[in-house]
């Protein structure tokens, strides 16, 4: 070990490395490239991972939707093809019978799923937009960012069936003048005037609504359109530790029971499970991380083998030099250690440069994708991974250095000197 910390050793190694500059640079490029690819790939995978995380942050991850369709089996005296209609009291039933459910938000709308969007007017400006009847609990499932000065629908709006609305950013642009404060202003939705109480910001990434959706209290909606107890669809969020797939099954089974549908009927209620979709995407991101790890390590390996290869050639080239060193009193151990240390030093040095370059490129990509709608955030490589890569390089560098070192030692000084 004394050998490694000896200043003279390093002077000797640094001398021989810096005097063969071309060889050194070519040798280093292999490992440099390997670690660069490793850092770049795993950082990018991590960025993708973070990006997905950010995208899904705005919605409850273990949430699902259920809506009514038509039956495909006759049951209990009813004929097939019966249209299913979710009702408000289904919400209470579901909440009481399925303990895994955290929130249920019933919604009803005009403008999606085959209904006509509503003609909306303010002064000289107008547009046709989707109108949703909502409960305040909806924001627990899909986070709604409301611009300063505004608010979302609250319980009193529901109780009193107030004629208030939350509009989207696009509604704001299309119905109001620039820099006009919409809060407190009135717009006409269909034939009824509504007071604007908030503007919602479009969530980046996954969103249930577009930026031109208008929200009004559910109770106002049902009075206005005379929909009674009808519900368009249910947004359901399960507790974090619940199995959403199971909850989905339970919900549909209970609904079939309530609506007197054959338990085997798969078509009566439709559903979409966000948790399932989410886990598929996360699985993809994890696969990407794994892939980048494999590719990165394979590339590093190739680079280190390249170093071994070039050192082997250089040992052949330096046969005479090594012979002279032996004649002047270098022991085989000293010759061997020098070559191994050269190998390790080259490996680690190029590794560190590769890490710095890789980090630089990651930072650059991060800057470039900052304002683009692409799931890519904060690409980083965990420190243990970096240290692990360095450790691997030291070990591999030593192992691969052993080959040329052994070769150098196996040449007898007399043969080395004879070689012309």
């Amino acid at each position: 070990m004394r050998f490694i910390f000896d200043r003279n050793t390093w002077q000797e190694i640094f001398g021989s490395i810096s005097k063969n500059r071309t060889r050194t640079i070519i040798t280093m490029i292999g490992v440099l490239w390997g670690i660069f690819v490793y850092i770049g790939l795993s950082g990018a995978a991590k960025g993708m991972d973070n990006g997905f995380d950010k995208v899904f942050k705005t919605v409850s991850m273990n949430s699902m939707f259920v809506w009514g369709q038509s039956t495909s089996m006759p049951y209990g005296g009813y004929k097939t093809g019966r249209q299913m209609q979710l009702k408000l009291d289904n919400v209470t039933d579901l909440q009481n019978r399925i303990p895994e459910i955290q929130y249920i938000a019933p919604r009803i709308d005009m403008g999606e799923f085959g209904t006509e969007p509503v003609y909306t007017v303010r002064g000289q400006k107008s547009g046709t937009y989707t109108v949703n009847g909502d409960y305040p609990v909806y924001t627990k499932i899909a986070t709604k960012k409301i611009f300063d000065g505004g608010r979302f629908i609250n319980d009193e709006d529901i109780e009193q069936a107030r004629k208030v609305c939350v509009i989207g950013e696009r509604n704001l642009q299309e119905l109001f003048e620039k820099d006009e404060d919409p809060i407190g202003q009135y717009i006409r939705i269909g034939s009824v005037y509504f007071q604007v109480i908030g503007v919602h910001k479009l969530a980046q990434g996954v969103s249930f609504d577009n930026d031109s959706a208008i929200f009004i209290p559910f109770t106002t909606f049902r009075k206005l359109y005379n929909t009674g107890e009808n519900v368009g669809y249910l947004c359901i969020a399960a507790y974090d530790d619940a199995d959403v797939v199971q909850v989905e099954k339970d919900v549909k089974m209970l609904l079939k029971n309530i609506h007197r549908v054959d338990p085997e009927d798969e078509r009566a209620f439709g559903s979409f499970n966000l948790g399932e979709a989410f886990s598929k995407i996360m699985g993809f991101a994890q696969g990407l991380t794994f892939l980048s790890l494999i590719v990165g390590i394979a590339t590093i390996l190739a680079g280190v083998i390249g170093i071994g290869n070039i050192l082997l050639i250089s040992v052949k080239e330096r046969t005479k030099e090594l012979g002279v060193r032996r004649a002047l009193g270098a022991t085989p151990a000293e010759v061997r250690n020098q070559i191994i240390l050269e190998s390790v030093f080259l490996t680690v040095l190029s590794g560190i440069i590769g890490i710095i370059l890789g980090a630089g490129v990651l930072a650059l990509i991060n800057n470039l994708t900052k304002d683009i709608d692409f799931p890519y955030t904060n690409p980083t490589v965990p420190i243990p991974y970096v240290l692990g890569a360095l450790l691997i390089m030291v070990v591999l560098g030593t192992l691969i250095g052993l080959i040329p070192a052994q070769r150098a030692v196996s040449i007898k000084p007399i043969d080395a000197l004879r070689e012309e």
Partner: protein
Amino acid sequence: MIEIKDLHKSYKMGSNSLHVLKGINFSVEEGELVAIMGSSGSGKSTLLNILGMLDELDEGSYTLDGVPIVNLNETKAANYRNKFLGFVFQSFNLINYKTAMENVALPLYYQRMPRKEREEKSLKYLDQVGLKEWATHLPSELSGGQKQRVAIARAMAAEPKVLLADEPTGALDSKTSYEVMDLIQKINDQGNTILIVTHEPDIANMCKRIVHLKDGIILEDKKVKQVRAAAYV
């Protein structure tokens, strides 16, 4: 200083065995300047390699400065070479990416001498061979005679018991050869023991003793009147 008794050495060439040295008895006192002569194939280089511990003997004994040289492994041989011997080669064998000073300092590095001392000492020896101003030059910037003088400085820097020179003038013209011999004679005058392998009679006559080798045995071993090389420079 050097004591060799009944030395045998043969090389295996496929199925044939080539008997190169056939019983050499030979001793060198401290301060001698000995020329080993002989035509090619006479075994003179083999003898020098065995003396230099670059090659192993098959039979006989070899004692250097009272130390019996037996059972050498590579590490032991390297340490002995470093402590006892200085080498000068026909083709100089300087390390081409090291400056003259760094070349001279190399055996001192293997003696684990600190850098400062190494540099001082190598400068001192470069000064002795008259190349102090060339200390920072690479071998490629030096002439043949200068290279050989650097090589001699390198061999002397470790302060060896014996200096072994294998055809030190073989790659040089006669004028430079005499310069190098002049240097060798001066080093010998300081009391150093030197062995030179050569096939040039005029170079041999500049030594104090000539050993003629032929077909692996000593044909003749005589003291001669030394011709001073300085007269020709």
